[in-house]
């Protein structure tokens, strides 16, 4: 059990809550709104994280600005527009559908359609092959007739 305790100690990490080091907004509703916005903004340094999760300095800078703008009365869309104007769509965790991203968003649908098409084609081929089985030859037919007749007699 000693090694288990050792492992447990090893993997204990302090619980970092992003933003605890920063001044949160006094109004809880506004703070919630700001947090929601932060979740939708990509961190510039660690790109798979939102600025809400990131410990990077630049993410902290962005969080301060988000809180400022929310405190000044900006809504979700206003802050997003502000950020996109400076950083482009890149800053959004969920990029909008436009002429550059339709392939990205459409790919799952496209793949499902392709799959359905392939399945449909295979199924059709399967069915037509069944019905198009070659007819029995004269000998085969005679043998079958004999067997069926025997069956009936019993």
């Amino acid at each position, binding site marked *: 059990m000693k090694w288990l305790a050792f492992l447990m100690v090893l993997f204990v990490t302090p619980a970092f809550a992003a933003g605890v080091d920063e001044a949160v907004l006094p109004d809880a509703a506004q703070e919630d709104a700001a947090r929601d916005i932060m979740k939708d903004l990509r961190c*510039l*340094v660690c*790109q798979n994280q939102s600025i809400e999760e990131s410990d990077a*300095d*630049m993410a902290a*800078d*962005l969080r*301060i*600005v988000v809180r400022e703008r929310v405190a000044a009365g900006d809504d979700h869309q206003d802050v997003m527009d502000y950020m996109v*104007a*400076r*950083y*482009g*769509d*890149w*800053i959004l965790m969920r990029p909008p559908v436009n002429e550059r991203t339709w392939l990205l968003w459409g790919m799952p649908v496209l793949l499902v359609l392709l799959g359905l098409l392939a399945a449909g084609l295979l199924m059709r081929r399967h069915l037509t092959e069944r019905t198009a089985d070659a007819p029995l030859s004269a000998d085969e037919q005679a043998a079958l007739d004999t067997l069926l007749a025997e069956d009936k007699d019993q």
Partner: protein
Amino acid sequence: MKIKPYYILPIVVFIGMAIFLFVGLGLNPRETAFPLYEQSPPDFALGPLHEEQPGLTDEDLLGDKTVILNFFASWCAPCREEHPYLMALSERDDISVYGIDYREVSREKAIAWLYRDGNPFALIGYDQDARVVMEWGLAGVPETFIVHNGKVIRRYQGPLNVPIMQHDLLPLLEALEK
């Protein structure tokens, strides 16, 4: 055996994906959008790094000369890497080299670094809270912008290096001079 056309479909799809992903490997994920391209520089007014010197405002970028604007910090290792290129650029008469210092642990250290290794910047603005850095859409330091005739025309993310200098920056300055 007769090869039916759809037998080679998986291979075609595989090759297509391989090409798609291989091209993706060559892209730089650190490169972000450049909304300032061909736009006027954003409004800003920064205080100086050294108290006795002037700061930097957007007005300074709108003079007759082409401006090289470099975002740096003394704690940033790649900034030191590109420092010799900026020193060389600062010796040219046809351009102005300005700097914006993004957040220092100690301003004295930054000043000492520039004093020791050389200061390529005719003017330096000090951006402690990253507001101006944000206006320019920076993803980190260093970054270098070129402003010509009141428009931002280039952005280099990351340190200046030989390929950038030889194949883009210097030929561009040459072309602008004409």
